[in-house]
């Protein structure tokens, strides 16, 4: 699975990065869970890892700490998936809560909390910190996944050889979801991720595919959540929302953490306007 780092090594990294130790331990548990699902054949071109954990495999340094976002376009039986989430080894035990629907349409399922017992650790961790959440979305996935190697975000030496690969959501599809995430929900983390994509990954983006996915997803979301998307009628509205994001407050800036190379809000706004928005224009 992974090489479980010694407690002292995790403690040292936690202090150096100023990230509470239980946060790192929780992240390791999420990585184990992803690898467990991979071992059990859960991932394929239709069922992928998404969200912040997938962004990390493209080099994102933003700290993502609680959710493991999965996305599927296959018809799945939640009860089967719940069984797949269970994992037991001498180093860690993972026990999921029942997978329950979280939307009226029944197209988002979550297991919350997934509880874990970090048996390899020599530090006591409180019960409410030995938990994470798995979200499984079964709407709006449009493209085949792509296999990518996982990362070792805290440089703890998790892999004995090559990093294992997992099916991820395509970069263009992640970008399209984050674009709508910013425009509809105004969560600064999405804008910061778009800046990262615009600056570091723009040459990997298929512009035409990005435009098409953004427009297609917008149409889907306008149908699913008309109240939230009512003023986002077209790609032009989306571009306008990215070009004029409005002020980013110091609290929003403090609210997202980068392990390395943080962006300032001014940089985020400028990079999105100058590097990312052009990717959306014909």
């Amino acid at each position, binding site marked *: 699975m992974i090489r479980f780092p010694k407690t002292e090594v995790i*403690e040292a990294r936690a*202090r150096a990065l100023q990230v509470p130790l239980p946060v790192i331990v929780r992240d390791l548990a999420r990585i184990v869970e992803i690898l467990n699902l991979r071992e059990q054949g859960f991932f394929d071109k239709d069922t992928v890892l998404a969200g912040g954990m997938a962004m990390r495999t493209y080099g994102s340094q933003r700290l993502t*700490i609680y959710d493991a976002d999965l996305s599927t376009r296959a018809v799945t039986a939640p009860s089967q998936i719940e069984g797949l989430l269970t994992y037991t080894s001498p180093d860690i035990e993972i026990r999921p809560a029942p997978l329950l629907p979280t939307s009226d349409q029944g197209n988002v399922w979550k297991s919350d909390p997934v509880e874990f017992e970090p048996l390899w650790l020599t530090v006591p961790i409180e019960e409410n910190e030995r938990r994470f959440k798995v979200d499984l979305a079964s709407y709006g996935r449009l493209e085949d996944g792509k296999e990518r190697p996982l990362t070792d975000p805290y440089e703890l030496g998790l892999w004995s050889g090559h990093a294992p690969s997992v099916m991820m959501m395509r970069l263009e599809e992640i970008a399209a979801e984050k674009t709508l995430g910013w425009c509809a*929900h*105004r*969560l*600064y983390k999405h804008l910061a991720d778009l800046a990262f994509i615009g600056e570091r990954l723009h040459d990997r983006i298929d512009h035409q595919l990005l435009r098409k996915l953004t427009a297609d997803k917008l149409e889907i979301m306008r149908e699913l959540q008309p109240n939230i998307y009512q003023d986002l009628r077209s790609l032009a509205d989306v571009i306008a929302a990215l070009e004029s994001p409005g002020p980013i407050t110091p*609290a929003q800036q403090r*609210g997202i*953490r980068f392990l390395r190379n943080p962006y300032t809000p001014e940089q985020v706004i400028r990079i999105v306007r100058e590097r990312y928005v052009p990717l959306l224009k014909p």
Partner: protein
Amino acid sequence: MAGETKARTLGRLEAALLRRLAEEQRTTLSVGRDRVLLESLTPAYAMLLSRMAEKGVLISLGVGRYVVSSWAGDSLAQAAPFNVLLDATLRPYGDYYLGFLSALIEHRLTDEDSWEVYVALREDGTFKGKQLRIDERPVIVTRITGVQRWVGLEHVRATRRERYWRSTLERTLVDSLYRPRLSGGIELIAGAWARAARRPDFDPVAVCRYARAVSVAVARRSGFMLSRLDHHDAAVEHLGDLRGQRNRVLLDLSLSYGEEPWSRDTEWGVTVNVPERALTGWLAQ
């Protein structure tokens, strides 16, 4: 980091003290609270504790508080969960609670985390500073004035035998509108309210009760938030007499978005000083 492991030879009294604490499944020791136990072992207990700290079997937290180290040379983190250390450190100063951003995180109302830890003390608490450090983490201290505001707290289990004080989910939400700068800012706060309002254990009546205890302004902000989150009936039933007041109450006391001609919610008399588009998005998370 764990220090170098020291040779661990325990004297009879040291072993007896550790045995007693182990029997009670405790990881902390307080000279004030455990004086009777200590005196029953030896009148020279100060010397005993000092020797044990030197051997590394006790780790001093200051002001007569110690954490038991299961292995000599343990770091503080290895000796006890953080909230046990927090309780052991703060209790000598009087009543306290873990709250604000730290409680929002613990109640899972945000996906963010924080290296800083946020606590409240009563106004007569004997700690006079604004910040202290526990195991290298900054602990930001704020004071709550007025006995009527000391409500909505829970004694949470940290280990099998040790507990710490924390604001309840509802009190944590109320505090976020009372001290927004300590609670991560309005984006995080609005998202937290939205998450809480969807939870089956969410108690809007408790929100109203705590909000009223804190202040009329906080109660009006809470009434506004409850109304935006489909709990309008509960808000009207329990805070309805506060509606329609004319004096200005800002939704975001931290003024994140500055001074503009913001719109005013006429029912609760709350000036919505954040962009409406953003607020709608945050509340729909």
